[in-house]
């Protein structure tokens, strides 16, 4: 079956034992891949809600294993890794996430009579859009601006978690850290042999062949 993706057959993990990675790279990526899927900071419902939001914001690649976005955020909050700064009106990260998820469910209940998780795609999109515009301000928010929560916390954490995962790198043809091995051919549309090959004008075969040897 042909691979319809833009970088067919490319898997950044093949670089694991090449000069592109060193011990530190392997250590960091391994930890990211081994992130526990069971909830540690959130409860199971919160985790499922984050997954539902993530599916609306960053849809999973169709022919690659899903990226555990919610688990990565859970891991981060469990370890207490924070930005080191807060936006105006925002509580600390753990508090913001818990209150934001509860408020989102409360808004879903108020508008549709069901938790966010059980709404249809368009209903979820509409709610997220209202949050993005700051139109949600029920009592469950406790004064936290819903727009700031969406833009600076929820969407950001979800996108960061998604693109921190090697599967997303393979999807977008990203080569991972440019150290220890960097790049030689730096001009436009130039490619080093250890870079992902993009499928151009339906020429999937050539990209597939090149990507098999990336590493």
């Amino acid at each position, binding site marked *: 079956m042909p691979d319809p993706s833009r970088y067919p057959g490319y898997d950044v993990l093949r670089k694991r034992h090449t*000069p592109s990675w060193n011990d530190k790279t392997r250590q960091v990526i391994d930890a990211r891949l081994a992130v526990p899927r069971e909830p540690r900071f959130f409860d199971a419902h919160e985790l499922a809600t984050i997954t539902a939001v993530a599916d609306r914001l960053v849809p999973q690649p169709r022919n690659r294993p899903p990226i555990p976005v919610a688990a990565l955020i859970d891991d981060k909050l469990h370890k207490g890794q924070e930005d080191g700064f807060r936006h105006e009106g925002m509580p600390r990260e753990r508090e913001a996430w818990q209150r934001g998820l509860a408020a989102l469910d409360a808004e879903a209940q108020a508008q549709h009579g069901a938790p966010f998780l059980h709404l249809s795609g368009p209903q979820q999109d509409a709610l997220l859009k209202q949050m993005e515009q700051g139109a949600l301000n029920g009592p469950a928010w406790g004064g936290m601006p819903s727009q700031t929560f969406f833009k600076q916390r929820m969407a950001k954490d979800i996108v960061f978690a998604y693109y921190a995962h090697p599967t997303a790198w393979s999807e977008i043809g990203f080569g991972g850290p440019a*150290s*220890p*091995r*960097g*790049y*030689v*051919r730096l001009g436009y549309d*130039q*490619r*080093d*042999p*250890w870079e992902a090959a993009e499928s151009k004008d339906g020429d999937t075969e050539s990209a597939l062949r090149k990507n098999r040897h990336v590493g």
Partner: protein
Amino acid sequence: MRTKQAGMGLLGSLALGAIGVALFGRGRQAPPARRRLLEALALPPPVTQPVERLRSLRLGDTPRGPLQRWLGIPSSPAVGRTARIRAARRLDRSAGLLATSVLLDSALEHYRGSFRNPAMYTPLGVSALSLAASLHGTGDPRSGRHPFRSTIYAAAALTGIVGTGFHLYNVTRRPGGFVWQNLFYGAPLGAPMAISLAGLMGSAAEHVRDDRPGTAPRIFGLPAGRMLAAMSGAGILGTVGEAGLLHFRGAYHNPAMFLPVTMPPAAAALLLNTAAGPARRDRWITRWWLRLTALLGFVGVGFHAYGVQRNMGGWRNWRQNLLNGPPLPAPPSFTGLALAGLAALDLLEDEPDA
């Protein structure tokens, strides 16, 4: 740390230099007895008949041509068949070294450029052919021109000029055009001339091989020895410019990087002095300085190999560092040119076995 670096480089270089000496140091069979010739010259035989005149020319100098007189260049010794062919074979060898350097360097650098322009294959083919021609010539003890070799050498000389045009075009079409940044990182302007030099040295070999015995061989109407000394001197200066530019880009971070911008210019000056100065001198300083410069070409490969190791990932990351690091095949250009200079020196010094 710096002394350790220099030490590592020196060790590797000495090993390579030893190989170089073993491979190329055997060109000179026996030192010609120069004194005997001086004695012979002390009493020139009177010239009476045409045959006698020719014989005297074999011992003495060839009369200067009009161009040579106009330029004020002193006369040059006539060279016998053996010496002529030995010089030609040395020139073939020098052309071969230059062609090898070009073949490997252009293969590496044009592979880096992903052969985006099909013309980028040209220097590979031409330098491979030049190398074949020079191998053929180095092993050829006959006199007379060889059509195959002559054609290829001429094509090589032409290729370098066309290549310079291509490289100029590459630099000017980059954003900013003719600026230092593009001279550093664009197609190197001086590089294609190396294949021209290989072609010129090879063509010179053909000329030297072909000329009438008992006269001084000529290239473009000027004595071959002088012409070659000037050509190799100018070639060395061009190569110094290239090395200087790229070593400046490398901020001369290793003191050894000053060697190719100090030693070869002195060699070039000595060669240019030889080209214009009186012949039949025992220019031992020039000879030894040229030999050192030839050695420097091999030592440079050692230093460059060390430079590759110093890049992140070292030799294990060779796929990046061979392209990113200092070019391994570049330094032997100096060896090729110094060997050509040595051949020129031979043609200008007396050849009693003529």
